[in-house]
């Protein structure tokens, strides 16, 4: 899991952005995705072998991952390669713009790579075919086994250049992998790249595990485990595999999340039938009680500046969403719509709260402003919950369960994503059934 970038982002040059003619508006559903040609990266013939990496195909494979990333956004339309009009190495030097325009491409990605002394050197360029000029170029060096991440980083840079917003491709998703019958589900912590590659299991499935969440640097995970039949919040170091119980609570702790600075864990502690919200400082081990109410208070989520906490409470009778200062003062209810509300999660941009809504036997994933106004329901289904934000605040990942028949027949749980525009709903390719997703921040920032 080590991030092995040897030399980071050696930036060639950025042309003045004001010359560019193409841009992609991501603030609304895009019905007219940008046609983009992703040329295979040219593989330098001086490249040396590296382990069992198929070097000849590497340029093609990287371009395929970039295309898949672009396609998944719904904002881009990667063109078929058989229509391409120039060889990768020649196009990379300087494309014949008019020829590429003939196949209706508006943007072109070219690149080349070289493996030497166990290092992968990559450079790529993004061309504006309408304005007939280079928009951005970048070169970097990394270990060859990181080649998939190379594709994701290139995707992020292009996405950023064309939309004006940070990308979300060089990221991971941690989730709960599920198998077995519904009454005796086996649940393991699993982690995968955002595109479904590189799945790894972090626990063996001997005990029930729930609700994993990344810390801001993506090295730690907090989650809930029924280890030794004691439901408690745990902390896991992904790289070393070290696990520890968070705090010394005489009862169930659950619904953990990190504070935005990664120093605290906020969670619920249930005692004598009452759940309240607590924080624990991971360094000093100081525990603070944040809410003190006879109702259920759970699913806390910090605002990105750490000053506020959104949470779920039934103090008004049914589940609603509340916001308070992070010291527990100034509690305000923000949901008043029909139905009941759960799982508030603050957007990394700070402007929105994503939530689950239950109304008339249906489950919705939605977003609202932080004062509860401007509610927009993005997707309706039989059962879905637990949204988690992409690091740029544009996409939500959540899980969805199907209705089960007799003896649980036909039951499944899968991860889905949807843009906050309400468009571009997609099922994520997990190896098993899956739930409780948590999206990492950008790995190389």
């Amino acid at each position, binding site marked *: 899991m080590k991030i092995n970038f040897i030399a980071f982002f050696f930036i060639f040059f950025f042309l003045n952005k004001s010359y560019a003619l193409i841009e992609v508006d991501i603030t609304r559903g895009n019905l007219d995705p940008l046609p983009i040609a992703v040329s295979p990266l040219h593989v330098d013939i001086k490249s040396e072998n590296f382990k069992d990496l198929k070097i000849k195909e590497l340029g093609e494979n990287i371009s395929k991952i970039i295309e898949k990333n672009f396609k998944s956004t719904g904002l881009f339309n990667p063109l078929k390669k058989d229509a391409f009009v120039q060889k990768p190495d020649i196009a990379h030097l300087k494309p014949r713009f008019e020829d590429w325009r003939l196949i209706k491409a508006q943007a072109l990605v070219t690149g080349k790579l070289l493996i030497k002394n166990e290092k992968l050197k990559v450079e790529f360029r993004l061309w504006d075919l309408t304005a007939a000029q280079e928009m951005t170029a970048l070169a970097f060096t990394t270990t060859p086994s990181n080649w998939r991440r190379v594709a994701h980083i290139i995707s992020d840079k292009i996405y950023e250049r064309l939309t004006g917003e940070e990308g979300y491709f060089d990221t991971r998703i941690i989730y709960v992998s599920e198998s077995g019958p519904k009454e*005796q589900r086996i649940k393991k912590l699993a982690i995968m790249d955002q595109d479904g590659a590189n799945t790894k299991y972090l626990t063996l499935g001997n005990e*029930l595990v729930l609700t994993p969440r990344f810390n801001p640097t993506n090295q730690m995970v907090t989650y809930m485990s029924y280890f030794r039949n004691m439901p408690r919040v745990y902390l896991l170091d992904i790289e070393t595999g070290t696990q520890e119980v968070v705090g010394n609570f005489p009862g*169930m702790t659950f619904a953990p999340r990190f504070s935005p600075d990664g120093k605290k864990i906020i969670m*619920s502690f*249930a005692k004598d039938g009452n759940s309240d919200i607590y924080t624990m400082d991971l360094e000093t081990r100081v525990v603070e009680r944040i809410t003190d109410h006879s109702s259920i208070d759970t*699913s806390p989520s910090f605002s990105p500046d750490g000053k506020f906490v959104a949470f779920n409470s039934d103090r008004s009778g049914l*589940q609603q969403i509340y916001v308070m200062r992070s010291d527990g003062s100034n509690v305000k209810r923000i949901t008043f719509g029909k139905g009941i509300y759960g799982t508030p999660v603050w957007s990394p941009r700070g402007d929105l709260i994503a939530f689950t809504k239950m109304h008339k036997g249906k489950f919705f994933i939605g977003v609202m402003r932080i004062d509860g106004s401007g509610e927009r329901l993005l997707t309706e289904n039989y059962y879905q919950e637990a949204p988690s934000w992409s690091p740029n605040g544009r996409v939500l990942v959540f899980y969805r369960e199907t209705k089960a*028949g007799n003896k649980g027949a036909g039951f499944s749980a899968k991860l889905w994503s949807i843009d906050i525009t309400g468009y571009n709903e997609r099922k994520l390719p997990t190896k098993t059934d899956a739930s409780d997703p948590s999206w990492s921040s950008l790995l190389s920032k």
Partner: protein
Amino acid sequence: MTLNTNLKNILLVIFATIILSACSTAKKSADIEGDVYTGKETVEYLASGVPDRVFFATNKSSLTSASRATLRKQANYLRKNKNLNVTIEGHADERGTREFNLALGERRANAAKDYLMTYGISGKRISVISYGKEKPVNPKSSPIAWSQNRRSVTVKVN
């Protein structure tokens, strides 16, 4: 005028009768009263005549009179078996968010525990654990299954 009012009253009575009878048949056929399971399916026994579980309404942790009767039987049984300790497992149905259901399960298990304690069973003999919606007894997605899953189950530890 009078005729009209009379007619209205008669119609109202007829309507009310239809609605009430519709309700009562629905309840009987489904082993659900209000929203609470009243059947015997899925129920196990700590001893002869001592059911191991009580059922709850959606989002609720209050005990029905039937639940209280069951718990009194459990208290009686625990009084007779002084060395026996129990764990009360609290559960929720699948129609709620996972984290909230964990809290709800804990609340339900404690409602049962509190009731046993008012009948003289020491809290030291009763531990509590919530499984939220993680361990349904009936995996089907139906109102009956959900009502069977909204439960607290008393389990012998030793």
